[in-house]
């Protein structure tokens, strides 16, 4: 059952006031966020004023959009006009967005309440939300563990019921992996399906905005709300907005599912593997057929990603120079000193590491060996998915090779952290839609994510299959245990 629909019905029928709902969410934030640290900023007064206005409109019987009065969190790399956009970086600590991102505009036009901005890895670079300049977000399911990243604040805020839903961005798994770690649903739409206008760019050919929610239905509702052509994004597709919610049906009858054995091998935690196979068998019992197959090029996906993404990042982040944006280092003798010191002191370790890698692979003498080769492997990955989808309706993998890891456990091992993205990265490389949904947790109760991948622009197929799994899986409906 959609939590958004249930709340919308309660508003319409007069069983619940928007102001009561928002007040309850703000109260949850006040009590839980000192521990969880999901939010970087919360606009309580604005949210309550909007809620009171909506209550008047509901009482008058005005026709209201489905998202009216729904409290939503927004990752802090997505602009909301007049509010901070820090990207969890010291560089943008005092930056205020001068315009709305297209996704924010869509949500505000449907009277959603954008309650606050959520924590993230700095400039979306990381898989644990430990690389925030301001705070480390904790996993509501086990506060000694990371919530995943980079949209860890959004995932934690949803999992801890601080908001009904949230938006994140996904460049190499940054929506799906935190959704898996926190036991919620995370949807990465097809590249171009959702406008990136107003999203602070990390790797422009990979970035995509998407929803994090408790249920598959809610993910469909949010996708319908934010998708569609936008002339302000030169890579936005001309497809019309989706209508997935109204066409949702738990259906996988007759579908063939491919499972790449490269993503279900020895590198995958046995508990994760067992949970994914159980989920596949459940789907098979309801009319699908699954089989293992090989996509050898996936073994090169992580290396490919960690060349292309840093290369694009080194270009995109060149604008943060202390001249036009945010932090400027004091007491510099020359303009060059000012720029290098502002960047050196304003950017964090992970961001600097990736900028250095990106600069290196784009530099003369290394471009062909690294960047050009990576682009060719990327094409091979895309082609490999295209071939696979001629045989299979869906591809299924674990979302992550393990459950949420302990805070600080990868602090000195960036490569180890990168390798944990092996199942999510190929999807971004090929521009495909994918969803992470909870499957059976591990023996200690930690959530495990099941990743479903569909051909480009086949989000409806993806959501229908995910809905069937949701109805079959107890994990989604297990009462959350926070703190």
């Amino acid at each position, binding site marked *: 059952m959609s939590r958004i629909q249930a709340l919308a019905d309660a508003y319409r029928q007069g069983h619940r006031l928007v102001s009561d709902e928002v007040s309850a969410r703000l109260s949850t934030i006040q009590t839980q966020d000192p521990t969880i640290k999901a939010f970087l900023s919360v606009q309580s007064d604005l949210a309550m004023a909007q809620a009171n206005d909506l209550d008047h409109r509901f009482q008058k019987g005005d026709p209201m959009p489905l998202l009216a009065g729904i409290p939503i969190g927004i990752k802090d790399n997505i602009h909301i006009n007049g509010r901070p956009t820090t990207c969890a970086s010291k560089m943008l600590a005092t930056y205020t967005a001068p315009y709305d991102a297209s996704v924010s505009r869509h949500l505000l036009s449907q009277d959603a309440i954008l309650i606050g901005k959520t924590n993230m890895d700095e400039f979306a670079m990381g898989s644990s939300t430990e690389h925030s300049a301001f705070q480390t977000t904790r996993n509501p399911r086990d506060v000694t563990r990371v919530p995943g990243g980079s949209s860890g604040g959004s995932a934690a805020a949803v999992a801890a019921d601080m908001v009904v839903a949230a938006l994140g961005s996904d460049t190499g798994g940054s929506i799906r992996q935190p959704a898996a770690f926190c036991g919620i649903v995370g949807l990465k739409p097809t590249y171009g399906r959702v406008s990136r206008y107003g999203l602070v760019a990390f790797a422009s050919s990979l970035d995509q905005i998407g929803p994090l929610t408790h249920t598959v239905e809610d993910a469909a509702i949010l996708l319908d709300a934010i998708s569609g052509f936008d002339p302000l994004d030169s890579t936005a*597709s*001309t497809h019309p907005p989706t209508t997935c919610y109204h066409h949702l049906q738990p259906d996988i009858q007759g579908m063939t599912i491919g499972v790449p054995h490269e993503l279900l091998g020895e590198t995958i935690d046995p508990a994760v593997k067992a949970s994914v196979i159980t989920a596949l068998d459940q789907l098979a019992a309801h009319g699908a057929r699954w089989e293992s197959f090989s996509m050898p090029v996936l073994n090169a996906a992580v290396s490919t990603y960690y060349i292309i993404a840093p290369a694009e990042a080194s270009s995109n982040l060149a604008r943060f120079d202390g001249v036009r944006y945010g932090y400027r280092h004091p007491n510099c003798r020359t303009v060059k000193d000012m720029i290098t010191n502002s960047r050196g002191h304003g950017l964090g370790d992970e961001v600097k590491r990736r900028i250095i890698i990106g600069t290196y692979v784009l530099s003369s003498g290394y471009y062909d060996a690294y960047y050009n080769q990576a682009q*060719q492997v990327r094409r*091979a990955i895309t082609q490999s998915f295209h071939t696979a989808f001629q045989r299979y309706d869906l591809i299924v993998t674990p979302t992550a090779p393990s459950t949420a890891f302990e805070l600080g456990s990868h602090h000195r091992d960036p490569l180890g952290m*990168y390798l944990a993205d092996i199942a999510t990265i190929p999807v971004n490389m090929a521009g495909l839609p994918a969803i992470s949904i909870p499957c059976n947790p591990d023996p200690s109760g930690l959530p495990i994510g099941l990743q479903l991948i569909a051909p480009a622009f086949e989000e409806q197929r993806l959501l229908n299959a995910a809905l069937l799994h949701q109805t079959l899986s107890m994990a989604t409906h297990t009462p959350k245990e926070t703190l």
Partner: protein
Amino acid sequence: MVLTPHELQHIAQLAHLSLSPDEINTYLPQIESILSHMNDLQQVDVPSQGASDGLPSAILRDDEPLAHPDFSPQSQAPQWEGGFVVPRLS
């Protein structure tokens, strides 16, 4: 892959980043390890293609300028008086 501190410093300069000696000592083995791992890519047999062919071209629209009914450059300006108003240089 062996990267010297001097080379790392040079790359940082190209990227307009100041690095402290501690940062160089920390980053050097980490970046060496990452670049070594990426060398695996050289073993992947791929057909020769241009670098720009990696994008999922089927989902990119034509590169044509399009007007947006709700957008104007003026709307982005903190101050607009027939042009962007900026502080006078002293």
